């Protein structure tokens, strides 16, 4: 039995689905961010496995940029969360409707 690309793609699909369910179910903004990281990792796994299948380095290069963008996103997102929590501790995403206008 050989591990084919399909196995990695199936694992990535499962991980992506679990991340999306977590994003829909949880309402702690920090845990929602972690679920976004899960989805990003699923996509990274897909990129690398398809790059290995095609013998192309482009998959790994894409993952490199996804990592950089994820780091920037986490930095800004956590700063926003800290700024919100400083005004109202214990806020969930349901409470954060003041931007709705």
């Amino acid at each position, binding site marked *: 039995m050989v591990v084919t690309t399909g*196995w990695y793609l199936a694992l990535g699909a499962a991980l*992506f689905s*679990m991340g999306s369910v977590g994003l829909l179910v949880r309402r702690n903004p920090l845990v929602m961010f972690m679920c976004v990281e899960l989805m990003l990792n699923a996509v990274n796994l897909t990129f690398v496995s398809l790059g290995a299948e095609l013998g192309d380095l482009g998959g790994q290069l894409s993952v490199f940029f996804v990592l950089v963008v994820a780091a920037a996103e986490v930095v800004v997102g956590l700063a926003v969360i800290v700024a919100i929590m400083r005004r109202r*501790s214990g806020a969930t995403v349901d409470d954060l409707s003041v931007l709705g206008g």
Partner: protein
Amino acid sequence: MEVAVFIVSAVVVLSGALGVLLARNPVHAALFLVQTLFGVAVLFVLLDATFLAAVQVMVYAGAIVILFLFVIMLLGVDRADDLGIEPIAGQRPLAAVVGMSLAGLLATVLLVAVDGLTGAPAGTPIGDAGDNTRRLGEALFTDMVFAVELTAILLTVAVVGAVALARRLSGPMQPLPVVAIAEVDDDPDEATGDDS
């Protein structure tokens, strides 16, 4: 051997993801996230992406999760998420249905395309595992040097934005508009009395 490593890593990855979904305490969720990230790093090694495996451990598990933990500590760990209450009626079943249909769609795409993976290598050939880092560096700093510079700008903007957002303002000027200040109470203890 490869199959065994893959199966063990897949179990580690999926159980970690399940832990992130179900952990009540955000600290536990962050630790489960570390488990998932390590599993993905092992899979990267299995796919001969050694540089990305190292970066995965250092940047994700070493930096991003630490950042999460710092923020959790800063905001207090005593606020465990109560998964029992459901503020929006029917949200959980709906989320389960959406997740299942997403997984089903992805599985269908996989099953349809399982022996028909098309596409041509774009140009940069992939090396073996020992050659991986050199090839990645060469590609990044020749073909993609403009994109690398753009990520430098992006990271600078992110750092400046984070500092500007997290700065504690002193003085009479408030950063939020009036609507936000009126709706968001500064002191939660004081808010219980006059909150309608």
